């Protein structure tokens, strides 16, 4: 219980502060929505939010396609090449963000790709696909292969099997993987920070620079909105991952 309190204390604090009228957090000077209002008028934040969503959408789509293919191959063909494939999928999860960001930055510099939204999308796709692949791999391991055989035996062809057996049974896992990828993309800071070019900030990068400069109270308000969106996504994915009864 104490631990849970420890978890929530800072967040509750932030929540309360976002409605505090005072310019600095020291004391409570009354309830106010002025920080939300100010947030509303900040064009740079809007742009960063838009970038974040755009990047998350594209890299989620790409990473779902790549991740599902990877999981399917690793699960289906148990060859030596697939063991290397699995190692490649797993490794990005073990390597700290900062090293991944650094190595991608060097790659982009070396091949002469200027830092832009594209480089961020490539970076996000790389780490998101690993998560999607692992989620799907877990689902595939629980998946009973004889379902496919039974369907074939009863006369179903591959399109029918995909539509009537694979999608209904693996769909929730797919959605959970996609949501995970989306949330990770929205949340990522270190990698984005390293591979983003000037003028191409995402929300976390924007928050970071705001933290170092000024306007802490606006961050509070932004954080509350950001948090609410993430919570909704998480609860959605929890719903999807819950085993069917």
């Amino acid at each position, binding site marked *: 219980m104490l631990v849970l309190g420890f978890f929530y204390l800072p967040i509750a604090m932030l929540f309360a502060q976002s409605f505090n009228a005072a310019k600095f957090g020291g004391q409570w000077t009354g309830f106010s929505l002025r920080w939300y209002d100010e947030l509303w008028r900040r064009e740079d934040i809007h742009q960063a939010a838009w970038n974040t969503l755009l990047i998350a959408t594209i890299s989620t789509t790409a990473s779902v396609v790549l991740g599902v293919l*990877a999981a399917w191959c690793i699960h289906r063909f148990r060859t030596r090449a697939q063991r290397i494939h699995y190692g490649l999928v797993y490794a990005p999860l073990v390597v*700290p963000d900062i090293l991944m960001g650094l*190595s*991608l930055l060097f790659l982009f510099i070396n091949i002469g790709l200027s830092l832009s939204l594209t480089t961020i999308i490539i970076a996000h796709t790389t780490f998101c696909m690993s998560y999607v692949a692992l989620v799907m791999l877990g689902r595939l391991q629980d998946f009973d292969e004889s379902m496919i055989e039974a369907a074939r035996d009863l006369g179903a062809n591959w399109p029918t099997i995909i539509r009537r057996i694979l999608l209904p049974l693996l769909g929730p896992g797919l959605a959970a993987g996609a949501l995970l990828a989306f949330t990770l993309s929205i949340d990522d800071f270190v990698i984005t920070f390293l591979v983003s070019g000037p003028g191409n900030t995402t929300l976390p990068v924007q928050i970071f620079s705001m933290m170092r400069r000024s306007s802490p109270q606006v961050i509070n308000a932004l954080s509350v909105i950001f*948090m609410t969106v993430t919570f909704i996504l998480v609860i959605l994915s929890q719903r999807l991952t819950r085993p069917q009864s």
Partner: protein
Amino acid sequence: MKTRQWIESVLSLPSFGWLVLFFAVPTVLVFALSFKSAEYGGTLGTGWTLEAWRHLANPAYPPIIWRTVWLSLACTALCLLFGVPVAYWIARLDPRWRHRVLLLVILPFWTNFLIRIFAWRTLLHPDGHLKNLLVHFGWAEPNTQLLYNNGAILLVLFYTYLPFAILPIYAAAEKFDFTLLDAARDLGATKWEAFRKVFLPGVRIGMLTAVLIVFIPALGSYAIPAVVGGPSSEMIGSKIVQRATLDRNIPHAAALGAFLTLVIFIPLGIAAFLRWRDRRVTRRSHGLTPGVTP
């Protein structure tokens, strides 16, 4: 058989190629670039040199490396110290409550981690509520500095990684057969002995995962020292970013990155060895060590 191989290649190519190009190649690149020399203005010199690696011995670095390692170790130790009892507690809860409590544990770590760091900075701020409270009760002097030091970094590291430590230990504890504790008590063990000699070995793999999951990213921390640390509490991550983005000294950044990679491979190697030995022991004792999943 031939068509199967062909299908395998075609289906594997996209993800395999992507990961080789955007993960394997860049990682090798970091090592390669660390042997280059730096020219003024962020460009690379021709030829190979150990200059960047020799630079790691520069008196500025050892304290930073040492700080990074001990903060990460201390954070890992704290996470285990708190993570194990919490995981035990959750695993023993009524199943109906278990999932809700688990969700409560997971939720905060889904908030953006910068926001969490920022929340702590607000709390620990010289004008913040925590400081005011401590001073009010006489537990702190008005000029005590809560922020911008190693303590603040450790606290926030611990806060950030505790849920990551709880989850794998809980996953192991959930599979643990709690009647084993009763059996141990029945055979004369005290509660504490039963916990230490039966439960802890039972969740050993979960603890090992927790150690890796906390220690490795902690070593690579950048944002936490940047926000709650002071100028005298830099970590390797801070230096990497500084060299790569501000100084534009690519070989130095690469050498630091390569060094960090090596630091990480050492505990990974140890973990792999432990796991290998563990599996061998399990195989030899033919399932006589219950609760240990390889």
